[in-house]
């Protein structure tokens, strides 16, 4: 099955994607391959914070893990709806998600 994702980049531009739910990527990897300016320095270990996003709307997401909490504690521009894109796997469960890429650290 394909799922729909909506992403607002750092310039405020709106992008819509349809991707196979079993592509095996996380949201950081998606943003990177779509060249939306996300660095993903640590490769997805919740260690650098360069992939912070704000969840705008959509289905409820799996909870924030300990490593992710720890990183969010140290980042700038954190909001209540902040998440690290690398910690959210693409699957049927996130169909319809809309998020905004947070400013650079």
């Amino acid at each position, binding site marked *: 099955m394909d799922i729909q994702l909506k992403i607002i980049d750092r310039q405020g531009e709106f992008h819509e994607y349809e991707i196979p739910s079993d592509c095996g990527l996380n949201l950081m990897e998606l943003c990177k391959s779509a060249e939306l300016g996300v660095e993903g*320095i640590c490769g997805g*270990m919740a260690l650098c914070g360069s992939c912070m996003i704000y969840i705008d709307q959509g289905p409820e997401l799996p909870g924030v893990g300990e490593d992710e909490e720890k990183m969010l*504690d140290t980042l700038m521009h954190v909001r209540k709806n902040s998440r690290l894109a690398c910690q959210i796997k693409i699957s049927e469960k996130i169909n319809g998600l809309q998020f905004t890429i947070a400013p650079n650290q």
Partner: protein
Amino acid sequence: MDNLKDIIIIGAGPVGLFTVFEAGLLGLKCHLIDALGAPGGQLNEIYPKKPIYDIPGHPEILASDLVDNLMKQISPFKPEFTLGETVIELTKDNEGIFTLMTDQGTMLRSKVIAIAAGLGCFEPRKPALANLEFFEKKGVDYIIRDPLKYKNSKIVISGGGDSALDWAIYLVNIASEITLVHRRTEFRGAPESVRKLMELSNSGKINVITNAEVTQLNGSEHLEGVVVSVEGGQPQTLDAQFYIPLFGLTPKLGPIAGWGLGLDKNAIQVNTLDYSTNIPGIFAIGDINTYPGKLKLILCGFHEATLMVQSAYKIIHGGKDPSFKYTTVTGIKPMQ
């Protein structure tokens, strides 16, 4: 002017460190400079205790152990280090000699520069506060270099990680008053530090404010106070001579962008023959460079360093090629 170095390496990450070894085999001596206070680059700053699995010959090795091993491997070649200083200026004179300057005024000269600057300089994350920059060096510090500076002062620290906790605890007996402001309810530092902090908070030695952020800095010439906004509460104004936001470090390309090097998306373009840049005598190796097919891996940086020093040798020895020898044949000849 001080003596000429063979190779100056900007960046003491794994790739800069291994360059010392390959240069040493050719009899070239290196001087490394890094903005961080210790060698190791990303390995020590971001993931010291994570195992790496793709270093040839090491089925598994902790990042910090790899750095220690590299330091051991290069020690016979007596590299010199300038740590805790950022290279801000690089110029070339008509004789082809480079002069490099750091933010602390250290000046070094050489015929060859190896830029192994990784993702750039690690710089402190700065909170978004209106007049933050105005108060830098006037009460706002991101790095604690001399704890005694805070003797008998009122200080406010922001952050919830290990460094915020450790410094708050350390400064208890030095500062006259300490407030620790944290955005969340819980602290995620080492359990022992969290326990200690709670003890000091309960005994009134540290003023801990959670679910809160510093939102304003006040003062005319020097910092005099901060405003702390607490979630769902009234903002509090605190007297403070120092505000120390401790939110960790993040890499930024920094001054390198202004040196006239060919760049592509924050990386330096190189010729894969020898990782030379558009400026003869300057090479770029490791994460900082880019070329078709580039992979940001330690292993690839090691390869780049090995080829690079061949050309560096030629520049230093008036066009002469180095002779190729196996280490098994020559062994390691320590330098003085």
